[in-house]
């Protein structure tokens, strides 16, 4: 056959010959080595990522246990001494650790629910067909651009006790809000939830956009009001996104070191009250040069992260309220 001269009785033989010359026997990659090549390529492609993970995630992760179980000798020439779990128990039973744990809990409780609920609320608002809705969606996601340093800087201005917004609104704190042992942490948590609400919104609106439209339409046809539709149909279907955002929010909040560092700093008055786990790790390591203790804090932080993530997986796996 020949399509260059479709109507003429082609000379298939001649053509074939030249084409057959291409794949001669020696060109054929035989089954075995063909497979082997694919294996080699696959391994080669995952190699770079594997190396980086090995060196900068897994090695330090396991090294962390070493730091917990061994303490360096006074004489740096001697090998580190095995102390078992002594160091770990000592650290996590210390009052500063318990303070830190409590601060972390307060911080998470003050920041995550607000960020998640805010995201849901904004997504419900923005999930409608209106001219110019893209503008509002961008506005609602905009807090995603705010870094710890930027948030710290601007809220430093907004929460300035002497001038500006607080006095204008007739709000006076004594001591100043960012120096108050009770209010500083919730205040920073609020800043953190503002930072998070943009991402939370993006997750929620993405979730809403992947909802099966027929279900919502069916609900409208059944005469459901938009309120009922939101509560009875959208929210249950959105539960995977809500869980996902909650987990991301908790992890984000557990790692909110920057905003605390910028707004309060290591020497701020309420230090012991704002010394959340992540900040404690930093302080133990950088300020006190105590990697063993930092490792113990880090391990606890890891366990909390792990539990939160596993809970998320379990809940989603059970498909709490999945569409299908």
């Amino acid at each position: 056959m020949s399509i260059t001269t479709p109507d003429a009785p082609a000379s298939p033989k001649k053509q074939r010959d030249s084409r057959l010359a291409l794949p001669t026997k020696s060109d054929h990659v035989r089954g075995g080595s063909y497979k082997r090549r694919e294996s080699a390529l696959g391994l080669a492609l995952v190699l770079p990522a594997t190396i980086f993970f090995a060196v900068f995630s897994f090695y330090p992760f396991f090294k962390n246990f070493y730091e917990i179980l061994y303490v360096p000798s006074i004489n740096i020439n001697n090998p580190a001494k095995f102390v078992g779990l002594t160091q770990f128990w000592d650290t996590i039973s210390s009052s500063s650790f318990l303070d830190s744990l409590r601060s972390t809990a307060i911080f998470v409780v003050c920041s995550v629910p607000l960020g998640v609920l805010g995201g849901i609320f904004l997504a419900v608002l923005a999930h409608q067909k209106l001219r110019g809705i893209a503008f509002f969606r961008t506005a609602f996601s905009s807090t995603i651009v705010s870094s710890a340093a930027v948030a710290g800087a601007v809220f430093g201005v907004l929460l300035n006790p002497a001038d500006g917004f607080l006095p204008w609104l007739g709000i006076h704190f004594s001591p100043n809000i960012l120096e108050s042992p009770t209010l500083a942490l919730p205040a920073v948590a609020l800043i953190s939830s503002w930072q998070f609400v943009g991402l939370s919104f993006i997750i929620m609106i993405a979730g809403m956009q992947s909802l099966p439209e027929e279900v919502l339409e069916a609900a409208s046809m059944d005469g459901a009001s938009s309120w009922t539709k939101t509560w009875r149909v959208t929210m249950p279907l959105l539960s995977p996104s809500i869980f996902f955002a909650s987990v991301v929010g908790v992890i984000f909040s557990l790692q909110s070191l920057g905003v605390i560092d910028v707004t309060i700093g290591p020497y701020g008055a309420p230090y012991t009250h704002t010394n959340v786990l992540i900040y404690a790790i930093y302080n133990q390591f950088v300020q006190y040069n105590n990697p063993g203790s930092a490792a113990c804090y880090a391990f606890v932080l890891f366990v909390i992260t792990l539990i939160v993530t596993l809970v998320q997986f379990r809940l989603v796996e059970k498909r709490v309220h999945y569409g299908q």
Partner: protein
Amino acid sequence: MASKHVRRARVNKVVRYAVLTVFAIIIVFPLYIVFLDAVLSNSQIATTPPTLFTFHPHWNNFAVAWRVGGVSHYLFNSILQTSIIVMAQLVTSILAAFAFAFLDFPFKRTLFVIMISTLMIPFEVTLVTNVQTVSSLHLFGSTVGLVIPFLATGTGIFLLRQAFMQIPKEMREAAVIDGYSNMQFLRRVAVPLARPGIAALAVFSFLGAWNQYLWPLILTDNNVSIRTLQIGIKSIGGGVDSANVQIAASAIAVFPLLVILIFFQKHLVRSLTAGAVK
């Protein structure tokens, strides 16, 4: 009758826009203050009632931040650090995700699980050892040290694998029959088709890298010349005489991200719809 409905619908529409606008203002307000205060003098920033608008922008803040505050350096460093991280993450993620999505090789499942499990190790847990590792490689206080722990990302691999797996099997087979090698298929078909996912990853990794705090804080502590913008903002400080400069630096830090967000907001949402959450 009908006109009543029409009128009600119109009122309803106005209410909707009003509600949207109110909340948009609340959410955007702090960012608005960043850009406003960036062009206010320190005395304008510290007034009661607060300044909410100005007809006389004080552009000098940027000049001070740029020259005196060291923002020119910081910005360069941030751009360098962020570009390296984004590029490297894209490359490592595309390669690994392609392998996981399309190739068959030993330990594939195990390796995938291992890579995804890095999502559960908070970076802070690895902090102490990574500082030691980077120091022992003599990279402490260097740009390489600044970026090296972040050259691969489990999230990126996961996200792109999802994107690649949406490519129908037949497309790959058609290419195989036509004589395309795996790498040719990657370049000509897989990457172009996964472009939205790749763009989303690029944006997420840009945001992450640009806004990094803890690692550069530690790593640039003894070397101002590689300090990034975020740490620069902190080091300028927010005292009575420097608040406006700090805010001007913040505006410089936020501006590129806002531009990116305006262009890619849709991509970010799309990358998280359907598959990605599950």
